[in-house]
């Protein structure tokens, strides 16, 4: 039992390293991904909230100042990038669609763990660089952030990634039956754009939707960690998010396993 856990751990560490090595092979792409893209997103979000406050000619919205919203926008853009998985999800779908999954199915490992560890490795190697952007911005613009809360916010975010990956697993597994399911990824990401709180702080949504949306596990992607980091939420919200994410992981994986098993039965080993 102990040995098999060590083997599992070493294997998954190797998958995470694979993601790091592969991403660093293409330097310009890595720079755009880890630096330019988050800088652009931050700039756009900043402009949006500047425009909102100027247009409203108000110093506060829903009891919070402009600096507060700028801080939210800054961290929301950063956390949203971490909790979005379109790149690996697209690869997972392509593996099944094109039949390159054959090389994975005949090896002693699981498709789920292979991509999950790579996702973690990729998120790690991009996050360590892209975090410098919000950090520089909060010091430059003196924006409210409780940095001592960063570790717990990160813990929730990376825990939420399990749910994100499990949803990707369901979408990818449906490619066993439908082949081309790339549009599912786009549709899902649009829905999550709102439900995570990337588009706007979820407590601005009117009741009864507000309560429902915040109770869903997706709020753990952006709203809860960013709200906690910027002082909008307290630690109770973090614990509640951990619980809702756990429920989400269990429910989504039950469906995922079912679709995967049935999908394998239908799989024709595409090509060759």
């Amino acid at each position, binding site marked *: 039992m102990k040995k098999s856990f060590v*083997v599992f751990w*070493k*294997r998954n*560490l*190797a*998958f995470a390293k*694979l993601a790091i*090595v*592969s991403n660093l*092979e*293409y330097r310009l792409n890595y720079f755009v991904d880890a630096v330019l893209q988050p800088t652009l997103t931050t700039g756009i979000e900043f402009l949006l909230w500047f425009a909102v406050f100027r247009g409203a000619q108000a110093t506060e919205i829903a009891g919070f100042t402009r600096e507060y919203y700028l801080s939210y926008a800054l961290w929301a853009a950063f956390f949203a990038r971490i909790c979005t998985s379109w790149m690996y999800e697209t690869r997972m779908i392509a593996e099944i669609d094109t*039949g*390159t999954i*054959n*090389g994975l*199915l*005949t*090896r*002693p*490992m699981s498709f789920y763990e292979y991509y999950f560890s790579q996702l973690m490795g990729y998120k790690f190697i991009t996050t360590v660089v892209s975090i410098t952007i919000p950090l520089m911005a909060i010091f430059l613009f003196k924006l409210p952030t409780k940095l001592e809360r960063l570790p717990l916010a990160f813990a929730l975010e990376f825990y939420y990634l399990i749910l994100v990956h499990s949803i990707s697993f369901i979408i990818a597994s449906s490619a066993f039956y439908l082949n081309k399911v790339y549009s599912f990824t786009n549709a899902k990401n649009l829905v999550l754009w709102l439900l995570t709180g990337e588009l706007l702080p979820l407590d601005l949504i009117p009741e009864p939707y507000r309560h429902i949306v915040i109770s869903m596990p997706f709020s753990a992607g952006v709203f809860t960690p960013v709200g906690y980091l910027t002082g909008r939420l307290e630690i109770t919200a973090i614990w509640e998010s951990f619980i809702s994410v756990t429920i989400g992981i269990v429910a989504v994986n039950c469906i995922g396993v079912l679709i995967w098993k049935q999908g*394998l*039965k239908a*799989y*024709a*080993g595409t*090509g*060759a």
Partner: protein
Amino acid sequence: MSFVIETKDLTRVYQTYQKPEGILNSLKGFFHRKYNYKIALDKATLKIGSGQIIGLVGANGAGKTTLLKILSGLVTPSSGTASVLGFKPSERKNEFLRQISILLGQKNQLWWDISPMDSFALLARIYDLNPDAARKRVHDLAEMLKCSHVLQTQLRRLSLGERMKMEIIGALLHEPKILFLDEPTIGLDIVAQETIREFLAQYVKEKSPTIILTSHYMDDIAKLADTLLLISKGHIVYQGTLKEFVAKANTEMAENEEVNFEEVIRRFLETESRLC
């Protein structure tokens, strides 16, 4: 003789969508689809002993690759049973997967964006091999295949022949007991084909694995296989030694006519394609 592979009435049926030509038919097909059912493998029953090298021969679409995919656990049979090393392949248990390897000549199984050496290090982790022993094995195999100079070049930069050699090293790294080779020399020049053939012959002598080999190059089969498995429209139509097969064919020939293995297979495949 102990059997490492046994199948009984193994059948696989594929469902395929049929769409007549044109935009109008695409629109019709959007709402109502017609499906065909193709029997790729039809009640195939066979027994393969430990250490045998099987040449699996048949026309395109005869069911060779489907049989390999079922035996390696990639495809689930529609009916019938298969047992490989005592395991049910479709369950894809790790213990089973550690003892087999499948090489699909038309598909890359190593990682495109990294060097073969990085790929082999990753495979060593996946198969839980000692990293130093795995590294040594890679160098030994690369030397036998005369390709040590490309071990640290990104896979996508290699020629087809070099890539195939890397794929072979990757497939043999964990010393599988059963090896499924699906057209390992496809698209290669004569020299590369010869190198791979010689290498496999040497490997078989040293490690005695059980191999099922498919190839459209009859030289591969004639030089490597000791047993022939002939498949036609999903049916196994012959299982026996190559010698017996040629002798049997010659007895059926007209007097004064004698043919070799390649000629017998050519005639068989010609008959097959006429019947299609």
